[in-house]
Structures are given as structure tokens and as C-alpha cells.
């Protein structure tokens, strides 16, 4: 089974802090994604990566950056956390770009509270 893990289930940070969210997948997937999920808004894509050292902006990249130094690890960085970044953050991975099957496998999520 595909396993996607995230470094923390719950995180509390202060405004202005730099925040790192880590995601690791163990199935040699090419694609990795970061979403945030807020009530009534569904899943919104922040950034995604199709390969090591490669990143693409999603729908809401402002205030975030990402890093993919190794294939299995995709990090989301909040350079200076703000209260409107309080949310549930979900990481996902999928097998290969360009395939018709792009089933995404999700991690358990990190619930971030910015005070």
C-alpha cells in the first residue's frame, strides 16, 4: 500500500514564524502535491512537483514556497506565517505525469493554527 506521511498532525505557530511542513511518500511516485482544505472551499492546490527540484504553482501559491530535494520528500514552507494560513494542509502523491490514471494518495493532514 502507498504510504504518505506528514511530519505533524497538529501545529501551533505564531504570526511571523517560519513554518516547515514535511511530507514523505514511500512508493517512488513522481508527483507530489500540497493542498489546503478550508470549510466550504474544498481542496485548493498550493504547489505541486512532477520531479526532483521541479515545482509548479497551483491555485493559491501566495505566501508559500516548496522544496523537493529528494523524490520521496516534498516540503511546504510558510516564510512568515499569518493568521489566514490557519488551515488543514494535505499532502498527496501520484504515480507518473502524463498517465491517464492520476489517482492521488493522501497523507493524514496537518492542522495548523497560527496565532
Amino acid at each position, binding site marked *: 500500500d502507498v504510504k504518505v506521511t506528514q511530519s505533524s498532525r497538529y501545529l501551533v505557530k505564531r504570526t511571523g514564524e517560519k513554518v516547515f511542513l514535511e511530507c514523505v511518500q514511500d512508493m517512488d511516485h513522481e508527483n507530489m502535491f500540497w493542498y489546503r482544505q478550508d470549510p466550504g472551499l*474544498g481542496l485548493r492546490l498550493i504547489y505541486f512537483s512532477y520531479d526532483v527540484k521541479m515545482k509548479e504553482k497551483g491555485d493559491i501559491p501566495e505566501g508559500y514556497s516548496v522544496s523537493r530535494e529528494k523524490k520521496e520528500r516534498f516540503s511546504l514552507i510558510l516564510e512568515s506565517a499569518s493568521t489566514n494560513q490557519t488551515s488543514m494542509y494535505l499532502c498527496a502523491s501520484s504515480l507518473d505525469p502524463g498517465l491517464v490514471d492520476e*489517482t492521488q494518495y493522501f497523507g493524514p493532514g496537518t492542522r495548523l493554527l497560527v496565532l
Partner: protein
Amino acid sequence: GQQVMQIPQYQHVQEGEDFTTYCNSSTTLSNIQWYKQRPGGHPVFLIQLVKSGEVKKQKRLTFQFGEAKKNSSLHITATQTTDVGTYFCAGLLDSNYQLIWGAGTKLIIKP
């Protein structure tokens, strides 16, 4: 930009009633996927539809993909308390293989 509209946002049903959620895309999709997220959990893949007009069943769940590959529906017959959660559709765009998510439909079972 490209969107997948999903309705309704919420649906309250009595246990035993049916439930349906609909997704509509402004552009043609290569496939459409359905996910379920239980309260407090993360999205879990349910099924993928690829062919025009495709219908797939999983026990009480029926999934349809429209002839034009722009819309899809999920129908649950005789809901049970275990069906509670939010159901998301996600469409893979024909043009760039980007997965576009619907906003989800939250199924609430009335006591």
C-alpha cells in the same frame, strides 16, 4: 480558469434515503475520480471513470460519467450512517493532465 463545479454543498438525508452529488466541468476531462473524506480524516480514493457514458457500481454506490465527459454523478442508495462524510470529485483535464477538484458535498445523516 478551468473549474469543476460540485453541487450541492451539503445534503441532509434520513438514514435509508438516497443521496446524489453532481460534478460539472467547463472543459472535457480525461477521467474523473471520486474520493470520500470521513469526518476528521483525509480523502480516500473511491473510483475512477475514464470512458464516455461509463457507469460503475460499488455496492450501494453508483458512479456515472457523462457522454461528453464533462459531468459526473455519485448516487448512494439507502444511505447508512457509515456513508457520512464529504464526497469530492476530481477531474483530470484533457489539455494538461492537471487534476481539478470539486468543492465537495457533505453528506449528513439526520438522526
